[in-house]
């Protein structure tokens, strides 16, 4: 969470709001934020930290581990219409890469801004070439795009 908090302003500049969820109580969130996270990131966690004690929210999102009684790492990107555009679920020992989340946010925002007229090919990064799906592109992607080596 601290890794995400460190990039918070960048995410806000992209019009992204963050909600974090774990089975911990809001009281535990307070102590964690005050005792540890605020020492990693100035000001502590700047978004609402939700408490999902019984795992009901996590179950609906498919990230609640009934055996361990905790949520797995799960990241869901939800657009301004409330539609899930991307998700990533991982077991606990491996942390997320916020750079990849931000890359995906920029890609989905580009697609949305162009009304779907442009798509981002594999490995796209901001400023990179986009594809314009349509009849002319069928069978001709090779002319305009090659995978990075």
């Amino acid at each position, binding site marked *: 969470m601290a890794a995400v908090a460190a990039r918070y302003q960048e995410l806000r500049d992209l019009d*992204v709001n963050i909600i974090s969820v774990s089975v911990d109580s809001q009281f535990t969130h307070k102590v964690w934020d005050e005792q540890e996270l605020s020492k990693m990131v100035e000001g502590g966690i700047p978004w609402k*930290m939700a408490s999902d004690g019984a795992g009901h929210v996590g179950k609906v999102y*498919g990230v609640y581990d009934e055996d361990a009684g905790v949520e*797995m790492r799960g990241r869901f990107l939800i657009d301004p219409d*409330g539609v899930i555009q991307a998700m990533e679920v991982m077991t606990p020992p491996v942390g997320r890469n916020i750079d990849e989340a931000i890359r995906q946010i920029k890609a989905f925002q580009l697609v949305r801004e162009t009304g779907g007229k442009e798509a981002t090919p594999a490995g796209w990064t901001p400023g990179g070439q986009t594809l314009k799906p349509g009849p002319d592109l069928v069978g001709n992607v090779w002319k305009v795009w090659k995978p990075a080596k």
Partner: protein
Amino acid sequence: MAGCARPTGASVSLHVEGLDGHDEETTVTEKEATTMSGARVGRPAPDFEAPAYYKGEFTTVKLSESVGKGWTLLCFYPGDFTFV
């Protein structure tokens, strides 16, 4: 998602017994499109409301309120004070 099938439009509520003695309600509302499958890309995100901590205060958080303000990154994690 197994175990998550509920009647269309059903609202699932649970009570979280707050340490201060107040009941706090968490409501999970599943929209029709997601009832059988939970969260799926290209489908509406299941809305929920839950108790939350925010900048020194205890409050609630509702997904649909965040959605109304722009993009949302919803992050689940195993637990406070974990190492990764």
